[in-house]
């Protein structure tokens, strides 16, 4: 079955991101790995969920991922527009990362609004592409498709519709089912 967006977000939160803490703390030993030590003003890599949590308590400043700049995103958007297939994204969970960071730390990032719009544009373009390729895939009666560079959240938008639709098509296509053999 499909996941809901919150579950996708949960998976995405495990990515690491750079923060600059304003407090001091020893190394933390977590299931997902060791984090720290934290020293004020010294950048450190932490999981996204921790960064968001620390930010909400005003314990750190989040450094935007390298790709989260207007120039890079404009470039990605252009590439996506020109390519017929999906282009690779800089981050496997670009949508979640943007959503979380811009939500929690709008003041740590330059040009928040522009970035938000660009990411939304890229998302819309890719979703439109995904839909038309789903349609083309169904029309040619395909049973196997290889799609590269789709992110989890994007795949999740056509689930569970597409699997269910394919199930039904398969059912209608079956030569003969055994209903009557059972009753006779």
């Amino acid at each position, binding site marked *: *079955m*499909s996941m*809901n*967006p*919150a579950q996708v*977000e949960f998976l995405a939160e495990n990515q690491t991101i750079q923060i600059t803490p304003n407090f001091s703390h020893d190394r933390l030993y977590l299931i997902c790995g060791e984090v720290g030590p934290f020293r004020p003003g010294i950048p450190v890599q932490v999981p996204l969920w921790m960064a968001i949590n620390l930010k909400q308590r005003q314990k750190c400043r989040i450094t935007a991922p390298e790709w989260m700049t207007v120039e890079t995103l404009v470039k990605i958007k252009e590439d996506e527009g020109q390519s017929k297939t999906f282009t690779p994204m800089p981050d496997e969970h670009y949508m979640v990362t943007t*959503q979380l960071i811009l*939500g929690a730390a709008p003041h740590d990032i330059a040009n928040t609004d522009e970035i938000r719009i660009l990411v939304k544009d890229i998302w819309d373009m890719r979703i439109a592409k995904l*839909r038309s390729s*789903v*349609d083309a895939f*169904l*029309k040619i*009666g395909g049973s196997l498709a290889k799609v590269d560079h789709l992110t989890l959240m994007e795949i*999740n*938008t*056509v*689930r*569970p*519709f597409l699997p*269910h*639709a394919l*199930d*039904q*098509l398969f*059912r*209608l*296509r079956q030569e*003969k*089912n*055994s*209903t*009557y053999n*059972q*009753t*006779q």
Partner: protein
Amino acid sequence: MPKLIFSYSPNYFSIEDIVLQDVRVSCKFEVSVPKLGMLDQSADDQDLKQGSKVELPFWMVPTLHAKKVITFEIPRHYKVNYRQILQADSIVVDLHKWGPYFYDLGNHVANLELKDSLDIKKSLVQTLLNRLRHIMDMSQHSTHHETVHLIANLDELERKLFAVGQLSYRSYKEWVRRESSKINTAALVASHRKRKFAEVTV
């Protein structure tokens, strides 16, 4: 996410499968049947004569047809002229009017090994294929209150697909608005009616 339970035939216990087979089909008896004259209301005879025309529910047809007791007329929406309509433009057709369970009944009809079986089957698959894109787009671009109007000409199977599509779209929208992380009252609790004061005191 709720699971979808379709009438995946063969499924003996599917209520939908039972309901959708309860359509009348006009049949002609090829043999005479003793003591069944009451089926044909126009005849006074005790026995059902060979050649009498009777309307029977569809679920009786497969067995009787297989035993060569009856010949029957396929429900009209699966006949060749209706198939041509579907071929011309399936998206504008009001499939709900054609039979709320158009695909499933059609599947049953096609399984009867008629000479049209293959064509009916092809037409069903092609119709669903043609309409899928439209259903997918509608389900992802409509708000809750537009739904009634939009699904008016969808058959039951398509409506279910529409509902799943809309559900995933809605949960995405909720996530974008940052509402999915909020803790809500469970639907069951919210719809649970409070016991009336009178009931408690009595």
